[in-house]
């Protein structure tokens, strides 16, 4: 049921008119093209935008990495300068002033990035420091990471992670966040060579300044710095990480080589760009959450939507104009054809493209031809029917009048006045019914009355040499029949049946209704016909008229069939030396004024009502 409903809904949606079909087709095509175009454009633009973003991030990181490297190199150079130019060349005790001066020069030249330069001996005692400041009581130098690293791996310089400098008390009650560059050095103190550690404490703010400069995006993109173990050196949310408010996968990222990686961290997809700072092994990491990448494409998205909407507006307009232009002449032609079908006589529309103009002209010509042909057919039919009737009736009247008048003449001549009066009165009845006010359809009662009068006249004329019996079911009296159809049958029965049978001739007229059909029969017990002769009677090629009006059974048959249809008419049954029965079959149509008029207008009484005779005949 549900599926049927859906199907019927789809059926309802199917465009019925040519205009809606064209618009629907154009709309589907244009919307599909626009969507495909929009999606392709968006994917292309967003890919380019993302690639550009990743590329610019990579370049920015490269620059920052280089700046960081330069900074760290300069720190190493300071360390080298302090070692090779100051420490190695001088005895710390003997030339402490000179050492101090040189260290001071170094410090002053780089004070923006430096916190302090200090030299410790292998016991952790301070040998020299710049800027000069009071050393804290028991700062536990040898326990500090930078010192231990320098002593453990003497051949290298070591960069620590950021930490609070816990060495000096400068009286400001402040603590400095530094990154220590330490290395083991060879000292000469009082002429004795010993190991020591040279410490260059870099101001952390120099590095955080560099990193802050690139951490300005407000779209979620950020950069951080960690060491090779993933320990954070700088992060824009450093304290949030250590407080556990947020977290960072720096330990995992620290293991990656330089490059761009697609990672998922805590359910968030992001691009991670890794850049290694040389010598230190530090990793400069750029994090681009996918949201940040999408944020860059939002404007592109809106722009493409805007373009698509404007295109849709234009296409809707173009669709409509094109559809109207194509369909308008067809619709006008269709409208004029519809008016024609509705019975009006409009001018058939001729316009639009050459094909449609040709179509209009063809339809117009066809309609004109049909009109002409219809008129011609109707005219011909009417003419034919009229001429047939006229011909038939003209055939009847002169014969009969001639015979009747001849009989009356004989009676008058033989002074049989009563018979003549009777004959004349019967003739008057006969003619009254014959004329019937010009009607061609009368009731069976009148037709039988006419037959009775006719037979009375003929009986007088033939001196009662045969007998006539009327055996009529009264039910058939009130049905319709074509006038003057029994008379020719009776005339034939007399002339070819009972004439010359020496008082033994009998003519029997019967009438009854069978299954909606009225059957009127005229039977004689005359000489009859062979089967071959009988078959020729209704074709008009029968024996020659030796007597009678000259109106044959063919005429009677034609008249019945013209009015009632081909299925009705005459039937002949005859046996040689036994007699002949001629039956009239007509439909049982009650005789009313309305039915009479319909029949006379040429309407055939059929099962579905009345039909136009002309049409019926044309179809036949």
């Amino acid at each position, binding site marked *: 049921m549900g599926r049927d409903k859906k199907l019927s809904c789809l059926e309802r949606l199917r465009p019925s008119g040519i205009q809606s079909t064209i618009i629907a087709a154009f709309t589907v095509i244009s919307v599909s093209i626009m969507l495909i175009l929009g999606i392709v454009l968006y994917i292309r633009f967003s890919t380019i935008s993302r690639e550009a973003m990743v590329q610019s991030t990579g370049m920015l990181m490269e620059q920052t990495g280089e700046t960081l490297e330069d900074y760290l190199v300069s720190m190493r150079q300071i360390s080298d300068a302090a070692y090779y130019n100051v420490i190695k060349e001088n005895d710390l005790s003997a030339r402490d002033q000179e050492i101090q001066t040189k260290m001071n020069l170094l410090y002053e030249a780089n004070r923006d990035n430096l916190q302090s330069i200090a030299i410790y001996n292998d016991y952790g005692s301070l040998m020299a420091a710049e800027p000069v400041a009071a050393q804290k009581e028991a700062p536990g130098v040898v326990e500090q990471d930078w010192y231990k690293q320098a002593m453990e791996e003497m051949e290298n310089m070591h960069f620590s992670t950021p930490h*609070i400098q816990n060495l000096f008390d400068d009286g400001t009650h*402040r603590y400095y966040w530094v990154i220590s560059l330490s290395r083991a050095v060879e000292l000469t103190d009082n002429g004795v060579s010993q190991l020591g550690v040279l410490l260059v404490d870099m101001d952390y703010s120099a590095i955080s300044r560099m990193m802050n400069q690139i951490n300005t995006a407000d779209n979620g993109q950020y950069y951080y710095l960690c060491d090779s173990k993933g320990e954070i050196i700088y992060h824009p949310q450093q304290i949030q990480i250590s407080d556990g408010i947020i977290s960072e996968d720096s330990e995992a990222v620290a293991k990656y080589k330089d490059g761009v990686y697609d990672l998922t961290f805590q359910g968030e997809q992001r691009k991670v760009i890794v850049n290694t700072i040389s010598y230190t092994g530090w990793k400069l990491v750029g994090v681009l959450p996918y949201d940040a990448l999408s944020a860059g494409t939002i404007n592109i998205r809106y722009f493409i939507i805007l373009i698509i909407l404007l295109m849709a507006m234009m296409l809707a307009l173009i669709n409509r104009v094109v559809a109207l232009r194509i369909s308008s002449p067809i619709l006008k032609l269709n409208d004029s054809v519809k008016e024609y079908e509705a019975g009006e006589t409009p001018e058939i529309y001729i316009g639009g493209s050459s094909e449609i103009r040709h179509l209009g002209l063809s339809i117009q010509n066809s309609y004109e031809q049909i009109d002409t042909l219809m008129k011609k057919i109707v005219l011909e039919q009417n003419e034919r029917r009229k001429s047939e009737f006229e011909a038939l009736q003209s055939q009847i009247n002169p014969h009969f009048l001639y015979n009747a008048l001849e009989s009356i003449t004989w009676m008058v001549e033989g002074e049989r006045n009563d018979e003549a009066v009777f004959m004349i009165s019967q003739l008057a009845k006969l003619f009254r019914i014959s004329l019937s006010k010009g009607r061609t359809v009368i009731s069976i009662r009148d037709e039988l009355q006419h037959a009775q009068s006719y037979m009375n006249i003929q009986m007088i004329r033939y001196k009662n040499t045969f007998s006539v019996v009327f055996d009529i079911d009264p039910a058939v009296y009130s049905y319709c029949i074509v006038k003057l159809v029994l008379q020719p049958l009776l005339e034939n029965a007399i002339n070819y049946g009972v004439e010359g049978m020496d008082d033994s001739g009998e003519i029997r007229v019967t009438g009854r209704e069978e299954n909606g059909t009225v059957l009127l029969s005229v039977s004689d017990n005359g000489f009859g016909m062979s089967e071959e002769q009988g078959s020729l009677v209704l074709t008009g090629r029968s024996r020659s008229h030796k007597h009678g009006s000259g109106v044959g059974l063919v005429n009677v048959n034609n008249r019945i069939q013209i009015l009632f249809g081909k299925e009705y008419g005459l039937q002949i049954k005859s046996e040689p030396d036994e007699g002949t029965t001629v039956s009239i079959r007509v439909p049982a149509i009650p005789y009313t004024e309305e039915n009479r008029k319909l029949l006379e207008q040429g309407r055939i009484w059929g099962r579905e009502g009345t039909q136009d005779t002309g049409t019926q005949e044309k179809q036949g």
Partner: protein
Amino acid sequence: MKKGSKIFIITEAVLAVLVCLVAITMLWERRGRNLDQLSVIVADSDDTQWSAFKYGLRMAAEDNGVELFFVSTGEELTVEEQQRLIQTEIDNGADSVIVQPLPGAEEMLLKLERKLPVMLIGYAPEEDGVSDLPAVAPDNYGMGTALAEELLEDNGGNLEGKKLGILLESTASQAVLDRKQGFQDTVKKAGASVIWSVETGASGEWPADMTAQPEADCVAALDDASLTAAGAYSSSNDLQGARVYGIGHSTEAAYYLDTGAVECLIVPDEFNVGYQSLTEAASQLRELFYRMRDRTVSYTAIRQEELFTKENQEILFTMSQ
């Protein structure tokens, strides 16, 4: 009008409306939405004790995308002055304020809360034991107790016969009074007696000579200003050898611990006071049905030898910002 024409006009109209909407959205996106404004009003705003708090505020402002205004105030801030400053901030477009409640400011703050979201820091004023305003604060009573427990630990759990002195600001807020209560409750149980309690005078200055006070075994400084003062006294040996225990959150306080002038330091997590108060306020501005809630931040007891552990270095880092 024909059905086809109607559909065409409706389609064009709908598309035109969509074009306008997309164009407006594009312009809106390009211009960017206005950031919410948050103003913070605390007494003596330039003092180093607020360094970690300010850093927390700044980080939270970046994380939440709000505009932060830290109002500059003098050492002495009265309720009237605070009210005037708040009103100025509201007039300048502040969407929410974070305020350090002053004694007697409860009524003013409750009235203010009807106009815009108000978040308190340090402590929440209570009326019949119930606070109507949200606050982000450490457990002040708990910190007083923790300070006393550190003292107990150094004395083998027994303070019998010990004489104690207390230093606190005269404009002490409820927060400091709670700490005092927590400290006193614990030390009294342990048998110690508080022989003196010194507050700053009306001028906000500490007495020049503390030697006039009876000799105490230990001195408890219950707020940052008191602790730095106690540290200074201790450094100049004005406390006659009394060991100093205190609550503080400035680099000065840490410095006195580092130099041994202070035995033990209880440090409230001021970074998180700033971070959480602003996050709560920003959440209420951002989310329609969000209501700010009370938050309690942690505190850490630090001894001299623990000052430079990794965790404590981060505390120092926030203080140094």
